[in-house]
Protein backbone atom coordinates (compact mmCIF):
# COMPACT_ATOMS: atom_id res chain seq x y z
CA UNK A 1 0.00 0.00 0.00
CA UNK A 2 2.85 2.38 0.82
CA UNK A 3 4.25 1.77 -2.68
CA UNK A 4 0.87 2.60 -4.19
CA UNK A 5 0.76 5.83 -2.16
CA UNK A 6 4.28 6.69 -3.24
CA UNK A 7 3.26 6.05 -6.89
CA UNK A 8 0.39 8.54 -6.60
CA UNK A 9 2.66 11.12 -4.95
CA UNK A 10 5.09 10.58 -7.84
CA UNK A 11 2.25 11.22 -10.32
CA UNK A 12 1.51 14.47 -8.48
CA UNK A 13 5.10 15.67 -8.92
CA UNK A 14 4.78 15.34 -12.72
CA UNK A 15 2.25 18.13 -12.89
CA UNK A 16 3.47 20.45 -10.12
CA UNK A 17 6.12 23.12 -10.58
CA UNK A 18 6.54 22.33 -14.29
CA UNK A 19 9.05 23.91 -16.65
CA UNK A 20 8.09 26.21 -19.51
CA UNK A 21 5.94 24.68 -22.27
CA UNK A 22 8.57 25.24 -24.98
CA UNK A 23 10.96 22.99 -23.03
CA UNK A 24 8.54 20.08 -23.33
CA UNK A 25 7.71 20.41 -27.03
CA UNK A 26 11.09 19.22 -28.30
CA UNK A 27 11.26 16.49 -25.68
CA UNK A 28 7.78 15.19 -26.57
CA UNK A 29 8.68 15.02 -30.27
CA UNK A 30 11.85 13.08 -29.46
CA UNK A 31 9.91 10.67 -27.27
CA UNK A 32 7.23 10.22 -29.95
CA UNK A 33 9.96 9.12 -32.34
CA UNK A 34 11.60 6.84 -29.82
CA UNK A 35 8.43 5.33 -28.34
CA UNK A 36 6.16 5.36 -31.39
CA UNK A 37 8.26 5.06 -34.53
CA UNK A 38 10.72 2.77 -32.76
CA UNK A 39 7.94 0.30 -31.93
CA UNK A 40 6.25 0.06 -35.33
CA UNK A 41 8.14 -3.03 -36.49
CA UNK A 42 7.59 -5.23 -33.44
CA UNK A 43 3.91 -4.26 -33.09
CA UNK A 44 3.30 -4.87 -36.81
CA UNK A 45 5.05 -8.22 -36.79
CA UNK A 46 3.32 -9.56 -33.68
CA UNK A 47 -0.16 -8.45 -34.72
CA UNK A 48 0.07 -9.70 -38.30
CA UNK A 49 0.96 -13.18 -37.07
CA UNK A 50 -1.58 -13.11 -34.24
CA UNK A 51 -4.32 -12.26 -36.76
CA UNK A 52 -3.13 -15.07 -39.03
CA UNK A 53 -3.07 -17.59 -36.19
CA UNK A 54 -6.51 -16.52 -34.96
CA UNK A 55 -7.95 -17.06 -38.43
CA UNK A 56 -6.42 -20.51 -38.93
CA UNK A 57 -7.27 -21.70 -35.41
CA UNK A 58 -10.87 -20.48 -35.68
CA UNK A 59 -11.24 -22.31 -38.99
CA UNK A 60 -9.75 -25.43 -37.45
CA UNK A 61 -12.27 -25.39 -34.59
CA UNK A 62 -15.26 -24.52 -36.78
CA UNK A 63 -16.35 -27.97 -37.86
CA UNK A 64 -20.12 -27.45 -38.01
CA UNK A 65 -21.18 -27.29 -41.70
CA UNK A 66 -24.25 -25.20 -40.79
CA UNK A 67 -22.08 -22.30 -39.55
CA UNK A 68 -21.18 -20.01 -42.48
CA UNK A 69 -17.46 -19.62 -43.13
CA UNK A 70 -17.60 -15.84 -43.06
CA UNK A 71 -18.03 -16.12 -39.27
CA UNK A 72 -14.26 -16.77 -39.19
CA UNK A 73 -13.62 -13.23 -40.41
CA UNK A 74 -16.11 -11.82 -37.90
CA UNK A 75 -14.27 -13.60 -35.06
CA UNK A 76 -10.89 -12.38 -36.31
CA UNK A 77 -12.24 -8.83 -36.61
CA UNK A 78 -13.82 -8.67 -33.17
CA UNK A 79 -10.93 -10.46 -31.44
CA UNK A 80 -8.45 -8.11 -33.10
CA UNK A 81 -10.29 -4.89 -32.40
CA UNK A 82 -11.58 -5.66 -28.93
CA UNK A 83 -8.69 -7.57 -27.41
CA UNK A 84 -5.71 -8.64 -29.46
CA UNK A 85 -4.66 -5.30 -30.95
CA UNK A 86 -5.01 -3.14 -27.83
CA UNK A 87 -4.11 -5.60 -25.07
CA UNK A 88 -1.51 -7.75 -26.75
CA UNK A 89 0.18 -4.74 -28.38
CA UNK A 90 0.34 -2.99 -25.02
CA UNK A 91 1.85 -6.07 -23.37
CA UNK A 92 4.49 -6.09 -26.10
CA UNK A 93 4.98 -2.34 -25.59
CA UNK A 94 5.28 -2.84 -21.82
CA UNK A 95 8.25 -5.07 -22.59
CA UNK A 96 9.84 -2.75 -25.11
CA UNK A 97 8.93 0.78 -24.01
CA UNK A 98 8.42 0.07 -20.29
CA UNK A 99 11.77 -1.59 -19.77
CA UNK A 100 13.45 1.14 -21.80
CA UNK A 101 11.90 3.91 -19.69
CA UNK A 102 12.79 2.16 -16.41
CA UNK A 103 16.38 1.41 -17.36
CA UNK A 104 16.97 4.88 -18.82
CA UNK A 105 15.71 6.66 -15.72
CA UNK A 106 17.36 4.12 -13.40
CA UNK A 107 20.73 4.70 -15.05
CA UNK A 108 20.23 8.45 -14.84
CA UNK A 109 19.46 8.06 -11.15
CA UNK A 110 22.53 5.99 -10.26
CA UNK A 111 24.86 8.18 -12.33
CA UNK A 112 23.58 11.31 -10.50
CA UNK A 113 22.13 12.86 -13.67
CA UNK A 114 18.77 13.26 -11.90
CA UNK A 115 20.53 14.88 -8.92
CA UNK A 116 22.23 17.26 -11.37
CA UNK A 117 18.81 18.38 -12.63
CA UNK A 118 17.49 18.78 -9.09
CA UNK A 119 20.35 21.00 -7.94
CA UNK A 120 19.76 23.24 -10.95
CA UNK A 121 16.27 23.82 -9.59
CA UNK A 122 14.60 21.78 -12.36
CA UNK A 123 11.68 19.49 -11.47
CA UNK A 124 13.42 16.33 -12.68
CA UNK A 125 10.39 14.05 -12.59
CA UNK A 126 8.31 16.45 -14.66
CA UNK A 127 11.17 17.22 -17.06
CA UNK A 128 12.09 13.57 -17.65
CA UNK A 129 8.83 11.69 -17.24
CA UNK A 130 6.01 13.94 -18.45
CA UNK A 131 7.21 13.95 -22.10
CA UNK A 132 7.36 10.13 -22.02
CA UNK A 133 3.81 9.90 -20.64
CA UNK A 134 2.40 12.37 -23.17
CA UNK A 135 4.24 10.67 -26.06
CA UNK A 136 2.96 7.24 -24.95
CA UNK A 137 -0.64 8.40 -24.59
CA UNK A 138 -0.44 9.98 -28.06
CA UNK A 139 1.51 7.27 -29.91
CA UNK A 140 0.10 4.02 -28.46
CA UNK A 141 -3.38 4.55 -29.98
CA UNK A 142 -1.80 5.14 -33.39
CA UNK A 143 0.17 1.92 -33.02
CA UNK A 144 -2.96 0.05 -31.95
CA UNK A 145 -4.95 1.31 -34.96
CA UNK A 146 -2.15 -0.03 -37.16
CA UNK A 147 -2.06 -3.24 -35.11
CA UNK A 148 -5.81 -3.86 -35.55
CA UNK A 149 -5.60 -3.31 -39.29
CA UNK A 150 -2.60 -5.62 -39.67
CA UNK A 151 -4.16 -8.30 -37.48
CA UNK A 152 -7.24 -8.40 -39.72
CA UNK A 153 -5.00 -8.31 -42.80
CA UNK A 154 -2.91 -11.16 -41.36
CA UNK A 155 -6.11 -13.18 -40.91
CA UNK A 156 -7.12 -12.47 -44.50
CA UNK A 157 -3.73 -13.52 -45.91
CA UNK A 158 -3.48 -16.68 -43.79
CA UNK A 159 -7.11 -17.66 -44.40
CA UNK A 160 -7.06 -17.17 -48.14
CA UNK A 161 -3.54 -18.54 -48.72
CA UNK A 162 -4.29 -21.64 -46.62
CA UNK A 163 -7.58 -22.09 -48.44
CA UNK A 164 -9.76 -22.13 -45.31
CA UNK A 165 -11.86 -19.17 -46.46
CA UNK A 166 -12.35 -17.36 -49.77
CA UNK A 167 -11.53 -13.64 -50.11
CA UNK A 168 -15.24 -12.85 -50.70
CA UNK A 169 -16.34 -14.77 -47.58
CA UNK A 170 -13.67 -13.03 -45.50
CA UNK A 171 -14.64 -9.54 -46.66
CA UNK A 172 -18.35 -10.24 -46.17
CA UNK A 173 -17.59 -11.61 -42.68
CA UNK A 174 -15.80 -8.40 -41.78
CA UNK A 175 -19.00 -6.47 -42.60
CA UNK A 176 -21.38 -8.61 -40.56
CA UNK A 177 -22.80 -7.03 -37.41
CA UNK A 178 -20.06 -4.39 -37.19
CA UNK A 179 -20.25 -2.11 -34.12
CA UNK A 180 -18.12 1.06 -34.44
CA UNK A 181 -18.01 1.40 -30.65
CA UNK A 182 -15.53 -1.49 -30.64
CA UNK A 183 -12.88 0.81 -32.09
CA UNK A 184 -13.68 3.53 -29.54
CA UNK A 185 -13.47 0.93 -26.77
CA UNK A 186 -10.07 -0.26 -28.04
CA UNK A 187 -8.74 3.30 -28.13
CA UNK A 188 -10.02 4.08 -24.62
CA UNK A 189 -8.29 0.95 -23.34
CA UNK A 190 -5.09 1.84 -25.14
CA UNK A 191 -4.93 5.34 -23.66
CA UNK A 192 -5.36 3.86 -20.15
CA UNK A 193 -2.74 1.18 -20.83
CA UNK A 194 -0.30 3.77 -22.23
CA UNK A 195 -0.65 5.90 -19.11
CA UNK A 196 -0.18 2.88 -16.84
CA UNK A 197 2.86 1.51 -18.70
CA UNK A 198 4.67 4.85 -18.93
CA UNK A 199 4.00 5.98 -15.36
CA UNK A 200 4.62 2.62 -13.66
CA UNK A 201 7.88 2.13 -15.58
CA UNK A 202 8.98 5.70 -14.91
CA UNK A 203 8.15 5.31 -11.20
CA UNK A 204 10.21 2.13 -11.01
CA UNK A 205 13.19 3.63 -12.84
CA UNK A 206 13.10 7.04 -11.16
CA UNK A 207 13.22 5.51 -7.67
CA UNK A 208 16.10 3.11 -8.23
CA UNK A 209 18.66 3.03 -5.45
CA UNK A 210 21.93 1.16 -5.78
CA UNK A 211 23.76 0.10 -8.93
CA UNK A 212 23.48 -1.84 -12.17
CA UNK A 213 21.83 -4.81 -10.46
CA UNK A 214 19.03 -2.62 -9.12
CA UNK A 215 18.52 -1.00 -12.53
CA UNK A 216 18.01 -4.48 -14.02
CA UNK A 217 15.60 -5.38 -11.23
CA UNK A 218 13.68 -2.12 -11.74
CA UNK A 219 13.42 -2.82 -15.45
CA UNK A 220 12.01 -6.31 -14.78
CA UNK A 221 9.62 -4.95 -12.15
CA UNK A 222 8.47 -2.25 -14.56
CA UNK A 223 7.46 -4.88 -17.14
CA UNK A 224 5.79 -7.29 -14.69
CA UNK A 225 3.93 -4.53 -12.82
CA UNK A 226 2.79 -2.98 -16.10
CA UNK A 227 1.49 -6.34 -17.36
CA UNK A 228 -0.46 -6.91 -14.14
CA UNK A 229 -1.87 -3.37 -14.35
CA UNK A 230 -2.84 -3.93 -18.01
CA UNK A 231 -4.81 -7.14 -17.40
CA UNK A 232 -6.51 -5.67 -14.30
CA UNK A 233 -7.44 -2.47 -16.15
CA UNK A 234 -8.55 -4.56 -19.14
CA UNK A 235 -11.03 -6.48 -17.01
CA UNK A 236 -12.34 -3.36 -15.24
CA UNK A 237 -12.75 -1.40 -18.48
CA UNK A 238 -14.48 -4.31 -20.20
CA UNK A 239 -16.90 -4.59 -17.30
CA UNK A 240 -17.54 -0.85 -17.32
CA UNK A 241 -17.82 -0.24 -21.07
CA UNK A 242 -19.11 -3.44 -22.63
CA UNK A 243 -21.70 -4.72 -20.15
Amino acid at each position, binding site marked *: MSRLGSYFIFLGTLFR*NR*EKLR*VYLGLILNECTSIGVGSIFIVALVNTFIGAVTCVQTAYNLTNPFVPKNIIALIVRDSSILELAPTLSCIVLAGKVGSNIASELG*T*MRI*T*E*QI*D*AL*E*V*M*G*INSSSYLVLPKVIASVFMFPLLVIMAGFLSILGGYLAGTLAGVISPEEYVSGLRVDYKPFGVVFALIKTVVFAFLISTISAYRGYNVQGGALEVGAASTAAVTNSCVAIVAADFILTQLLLT
Partner: protein
Amino acid sequence: MIEIKNIAKTFGDRQVLAGIDGSFKPGDTSLIIGGSGTGKSVLLKCMIGLIKPDSGEVLYDGRDFLTTDLNEQKTIRREMGVLFQGSALFDSKTVLENVRFPLDMLTEQPESEKIERAQECLRRVGLENAGDRMPSEISGGMKKRVGIARAIVLNPKYLFCDEPNSGLDPLTSIKIDQLISEITDEYQITTVVITHDMNSMLEIGEKIMFLYEGNKLWEGTSATLTHSGVNELNEFINANKLIREMEK
Protein backbone atom coordinates in the same frame (compact mmCIF):
# COMPACT_ATOMS: atom_id res chain seq x y z
CA MET B 1 29.34 32.96 2.48
CA ILE B 2 27.84 29.63 3.47
CA GLU B 3 27.14 28.78 7.10
CA ILE B 4 25.97 25.43 8.40
CA LYS B 5 24.61 25.13 11.91
CA ASN B 6 24.02 21.94 13.85
CA ILE B 7 23.37 19.72 10.81
CA ALA B 8 22.25 16.29 11.97
CA LYS B 9 21.08 13.32 9.92
CA THR B 10 20.09 9.79 10.87
CA PHE B 11 19.34 6.90 8.52
CA GLY B 12 17.33 4.25 10.39
CA ASP B 13 19.10 3.90 13.72
CA ARG B 14 22.47 5.02 12.36
CA GLN B 15 23.47 8.61 13.02
CA VAL B 16 25.45 9.80 10.01
CA LEU B 17 25.85 13.46 11.00
CA ALA B 18 25.82 14.52 14.64
CA GLY B 19 25.38 18.29 14.59
CA ILE B 20 27.97 19.80 12.24
CA ASP B 21 28.76 23.52 12.34
CA GLY B 22 30.98 25.46 9.99
CA SER B 23 31.35 28.38 7.63
CA PHE B 24 32.82 28.76 4.15
CA LYS B 25 34.07 32.10 2.83
CA PRO B 26 33.98 33.51 -0.73
CA GLY B 27 37.27 33.14 -2.59
CA ASP B 28 38.33 30.19 -0.40
CA THR B 29 38.56 26.58 -1.49
CA SER B 30 37.30 24.77 1.60
CA LEU B 31 37.78 21.03 1.90
CA ILE B 32 35.68 18.56 3.84
CA ILE B 33 37.84 15.50 4.45
CA GLY B 34 37.42 12.16 6.19
CA GLY B 35 37.43 8.43 5.55
CA SER B 36 34.75 6.56 3.64
CA GLY B 37 31.40 6.46 5.44
CA THR B 38 32.11 9.42 7.73
CA GLY B 39 29.24 11.49 6.34
CA LYS B 40 31.07 13.84 3.93
CA SER B 41 28.81 13.23 0.95
CA VAL B 42 25.69 13.27 3.14
CA LEU B 43 26.77 16.66 4.51
CA LEU B 44 27.27 17.97 0.97
CA LYS B 45 23.88 16.62 -0.10
CA CYS B 46 22.28 18.30 2.92
CA MET B 47 23.93 21.57 1.93
CA ILE B 48 22.71 21.45 -1.68
CA GLY B 49 19.23 20.22 -0.78
CA LEU B 50 19.37 16.66 -2.13
CA ILE B 51 18.89 15.27 1.38
CA LYS B 52 16.81 16.96 4.05
CA PRO B 53 18.67 16.98 7.37
CA ASP B 54 16.81 16.05 10.56
CA SER B 55 17.83 19.34 12.14
CA GLY B 56 20.04 22.35 11.51
CA GLU B 57 20.35 25.35 9.23
CA VAL B 58 22.14 25.96 5.94
CA LEU B 59 22.56 29.69 5.34
CA TYR B 60 23.54 31.10 1.95
CA ASP B 61 24.51 34.71 2.62
CA GLY B 62 22.08 34.68 5.52
CA ARG B 63 19.21 32.99 3.59
CA ASP B 64 18.09 29.77 5.26
CA PHE B 65 17.97 27.28 2.38
CA LEU B 66 16.02 24.63 4.27
CA THR B 67 13.09 26.72 5.51
CA THR B 68 12.77 29.31 2.76
CA ASP B 69 9.91 29.14 0.22
CA LEU B 70 10.18 27.23 -3.06
CA ASN B 71 10.89 30.31 -5.21
CA GLU B 72 13.73 31.50 -2.98
CA GLN B 73 15.08 27.94 -2.93
CA LYS B 74 15.07 27.96 -6.72
CA THR B 75 16.93 31.28 -6.72
CA ILE B 76 19.58 29.89 -4.37
CA ARG B 77 19.88 26.71 -6.42
CA ARG B 78 20.55 28.80 -9.51
CA GLU B 79 23.44 30.44 -7.68
CA MET B 80 25.01 27.01 -7.11
CA GLY B 81 27.27 24.95 -9.33
CA VAL B 82 27.82 21.31 -8.50
CA LEU B 83 30.47 18.94 -9.80
CA PHE B 84 29.33 15.39 -9.06
CA GLN B 85 31.61 12.47 -8.29
CA GLY B 86 30.83 10.76 -11.60
CA SER B 87 30.52 14.12 -13.42
CA ALA B 88 26.79 13.39 -14.06
CA LEU B 89 26.93 14.52 -17.68
CA PHE B 90 23.78 13.87 -19.70
CA ASP B 91 24.53 10.87 -21.94
CA SER B 92 22.20 11.96 -24.72
CA LYS B 93 23.75 15.41 -25.14
CA THR B 94 27.08 16.51 -26.61
CA VAL B 95 29.71 18.20 -24.46
CA LEU B 96 28.61 21.65 -25.67
CA GLU B 97 24.92 20.85 -25.08
CA ASN B 98 25.76 19.65 -21.58
CA VAL B 99 27.54 22.90 -20.78
CA ARG B 100 24.79 25.11 -22.21
CA PHE B 101 21.99 23.06 -20.63
CA PRO B 102 21.63 25.33 -17.53
CA LEU B 103 21.53 28.36 -19.87
CA ASP B 104 18.80 26.74 -21.99
CA MET B 105 16.72 25.80 -18.98
CA LEU B 106 17.20 28.75 -16.70
CA THR B 107 17.87 31.84 -18.80
CA GLU B 108 16.23 33.75 -21.62
CA GLN B 109 19.49 34.72 -23.35
CA PRO B 110 19.62 34.75 -27.17
CA GLU B 111 20.93 31.57 -28.80
CA SER B 112 24.20 33.20 -29.90
CA GLU B 113 24.99 34.40 -26.37
CA LYS B 114 24.33 30.95 -24.93
CA ILE B 115 26.69 29.29 -27.39
CA GLU B 116 29.31 31.97 -26.80
CA ARG B 117 29.09 31.58 -23.01
CA ALA B 118 29.21 27.75 -23.19
CA GLN B 119 32.26 27.92 -25.46
CA GLU B 120 33.90 30.45 -23.15
CA CYS B 121 33.47 28.00 -20.24
CA LEU B 122 34.84 25.13 -22.32
CA ARG B 123 37.83 27.32 -23.22
CA ARG B 124 38.34 28.07 -19.53
CA VAL B 125 38.67 24.35 -18.77
CA GLY B 126 40.80 23.72 -21.87
CA LEU B 127 38.22 21.81 -23.90
CA GLU B 128 37.32 24.28 -26.63
CA ASN B 129 37.73 21.59 -29.32
CA ALA B 130 35.64 18.91 -27.60
CA GLY B 131 32.22 20.57 -27.90
CA ASP B 132 30.86 18.18 -30.53
CA ARG B 133 31.90 14.99 -28.76
CA MET B 134 29.58 12.81 -26.70
CA PRO B 135 30.36 12.15 -23.00
CA SER B 136 31.02 8.48 -23.83
CA GLU B 137 33.81 9.56 -26.20
CA ILE B 138 35.90 11.51 -23.69
CA SER B 139 38.19 10.49 -20.82
CA GLY B 140 37.40 10.65 -17.09
CA GLY B 141 39.52 13.77 -16.62
CA MET B 142 37.81 15.50 -19.55
CA LYS B 143 34.42 14.58 -18.10
CA LYS B 144 35.38 16.26 -14.82
CA ARG B 145 36.43 19.38 -16.72
CA VAL B 146 33.15 19.40 -18.67
CA GLY B 147 31.39 19.01 -15.30
CA ILE B 148 33.28 22.05 -14.00
CA ALA B 149 32.42 24.02 -17.16
CA ARG B 150 28.73 23.17 -16.69
CA ALA B 151 28.93 24.08 -13.00
CA ILE B 152 30.35 27.56 -13.70
CA VAL B 153 28.33 28.42 -16.80
CA LEU B 154 25.77 30.43 -14.80
CA ASN B 155 28.49 32.31 -12.87
CA PRO B 156 27.66 30.61 -9.56
CA LYS B 157 28.31 32.18 -6.18
CA TYR B 158 28.74 28.77 -4.61
CA LEU B 159 30.59 25.80 -6.09
CA PHE B 160 30.40 22.28 -4.66
CA CYS B 161 32.66 19.46 -5.79
CA ASP B 162 32.09 15.87 -4.65
CA GLU B 163 35.38 14.00 -4.83
CA PRO B 164 36.61 15.71 -8.01
CA ASN B 165 39.68 13.47 -8.16
CA SER B 166 38.08 10.07 -7.80
CA GLY B 167 39.23 7.69 -10.51
CA LEU B 168 41.83 10.07 -11.94
CA ASP B 169 45.61 9.70 -12.17
CA PRO B 170 47.70 11.95 -9.86
CA LEU B 171 48.71 14.40 -12.59
CA THR B 172 45.17 14.88 -13.87
CA SER B 173 43.99 15.16 -10.25
CA ILE B 174 46.37 18.04 -9.59
CA LYS B 175 45.25 19.77 -12.80
CA ILE B 176 41.60 19.47 -11.73
CA ASP B 177 42.46 20.78 -8.24
CA GLN B 178 44.35 23.72 -9.67
CA LEU B 179 41.50 24.49 -12.04
CA ILE B 180 38.98 24.51 -9.17
CA SER B 181 41.29 26.71 -7.09
CA GLU B 182 41.92 29.16 -9.95
CA ILE B 183 38.21 29.45 -10.77
CA THR B 184 37.40 30.01 -7.10
CA ASP B 185 39.95 32.77 -6.89
CA GLU B 186 39.09 34.32 -10.26
CA TYR B 187 35.33 34.56 -9.71
CA GLN B 188 35.46 34.84 -5.88
CA ILE B 189 33.24 31.79 -5.52
CA THR B 190 32.57 30.07 -2.21
CA THR B 191 33.89 26.60 -3.01
CA VAL B 192 33.37 23.46 -0.95
CA VAL B 193 35.23 20.30 -2.00
CA ILE B 194 34.65 16.83 -0.59
CA THR B 195 37.79 14.77 -0.83
CA HIS B 196 40.02 12.18 0.77
CA ASP B 197 42.87 12.88 -1.63
CA MET B 198 46.05 13.93 0.22
CA ASN B 199 47.39 15.83 -2.77
CA SER B 200 44.27 18.00 -2.81
CA MET B 201 44.57 18.69 0.90
CA LEU B 202 48.13 19.89 0.52
CA GLU B 203 47.61 21.62 -2.82
CA ILE B 204 44.36 23.61 -2.45
CA GLY B 205 43.23 23.24 1.17
CA GLU B 206 42.83 26.85 2.22
CA LYS B 207 40.44 25.67 4.88
CA ILE B 208 39.99 22.04 5.89
CA MET B 209 37.25 20.41 7.97
CA PHE B 210 37.85 16.84 9.19
CA LEU B 211 34.84 14.59 9.79
CA TYR B 212 35.01 11.40 11.80
CA GLU B 213 31.99 9.17 12.44
CA GLY B 214 29.60 12.03 11.75
CA ASN B 215 31.38 14.56 13.99
CA LYS B 216 33.61 17.47 13.11
CA LEU B 217 36.87 16.68 14.92
CA TRP B 218 39.16 19.34 13.51
CA GLU B 219 39.25 22.48 11.40
CA GLY B 220 42.35 24.21 10.06
CA THR B 221 44.51 24.77 6.97
CA SER B 222 46.87 22.62 4.93
CA ALA B 223 49.75 24.21 6.82
CA THR B 224 48.47 22.95 10.19
CA LEU B 225 47.10 19.62 8.88
CA THR B 226 50.08 17.49 9.85
CA HIS B 227 50.36 18.78 13.46
CA SER B 228 46.73 18.94 14.49
CA GLY B 229 47.13 16.86 17.65
CA VAL B 230 44.01 14.90 16.71
CA ASN B 231 44.76 11.17 16.71
CA GLU B 232 42.02 10.22 14.26
CA LEU B 233 43.22 12.85 11.78
CA ASN B 234 46.85 11.80 12.20
CA GLU B 235 45.85 8.19 11.53
CA PHE B 236 43.90 9.30 8.46
CA ILE B 237 46.72 11.33 6.90
CA ASN B 238 49.46 8.92 7.97
CA ALA B 239 47.78 6.20 5.94
CA ASN B 240 49.56 7.96 3.07
CA LYS B 241 53.16 6.76 2.74
CA LEU B 242 54.29 10.07 1.24
CA ILE B 243 53.11 12.00 4.29
CA ARG B 244 54.80 9.51 6.63
CA GLU B 245 58.08 10.04 4.80
CA MET B 246 57.62 13.82 4.77
CA GLU B 247 57.14 13.79 8.52
CA LYS B 248 60.30 11.75 8.99
